[in-house]
């Protein structure tokens, strides 16, 4: 009984996960771009001196995780450079 219930619980859970995975949602890039826009819209009146293009770049960089703020170039064994 308990085994059957547990099995059913896992089937339901797996179904829910599959549904969640296949559900249409904005791509991360879209979500991030919207977040940058929202923050810029809120901040722009507070920093009128800053050029809107610069503000977008600054906000974008500040919202990125540290690891993505800097681009590191590394040399592969074949001598090519990759980001």
């Amino acid at each position, binding site marked *: 009984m308990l085994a059957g219930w547990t099995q059913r619980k896992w089937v339901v859970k797996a179904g829910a996960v599959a549904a969640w995975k296949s559900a249409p949602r904005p791509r991360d890039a879209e979500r991030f771009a919207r977040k940058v826009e929202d*923050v810029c819209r809120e*901040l722009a009146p*507070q*920093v009128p001196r*800053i050029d809107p293009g*610069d*503000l977008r*770049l*600054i*906000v*974008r*960089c*500040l919202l*990125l995780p*540290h*690891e993505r*703020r*800097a681009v*590191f*170039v*590394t*040399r592969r064994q074949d001598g090519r*450079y990759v980001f």
Partner: protein
Amino acid sequence: MARLEAVVIGNSASMLNGAPVTTQDIDLLVRDTKANRRKLARFAEEIGGSSPRRVSELSNVEYIDGDLAVPVEIHFNRIAGGLTFSSVRSRAQLVAVGGEKLAVAALADVIRSKEAANRPKDRAVLPILRDTMEVKKKLE
């Protein structure tokens, strides 16, 4: 990094602080001790670079170059703006990059050192660093 106690300064620190700038080298501030000199030599070996050598006769700044994507510049004990290793280190932020934890100088310290150095390349980047600082404060 051979357990070298160093603080990332300069524009690499600006980038890691969220400023939209680029750079062609990595600047490190290191306390000048025999142990650190040994660690720097080992670090140079590990990254496949040259042994640390002086930028000029008059300067105590050294660099590691060679077959590296970017050279590493090493500043010992202090940088422009009267900033000592201890003071910069005390305000630095620990940042995880590629499995390593780096001490990154505060943006205010980078700005102060660039204001004091006042070279054309410093003056060129200062406006965007100041703007970043202002936006960062608003977001905090």
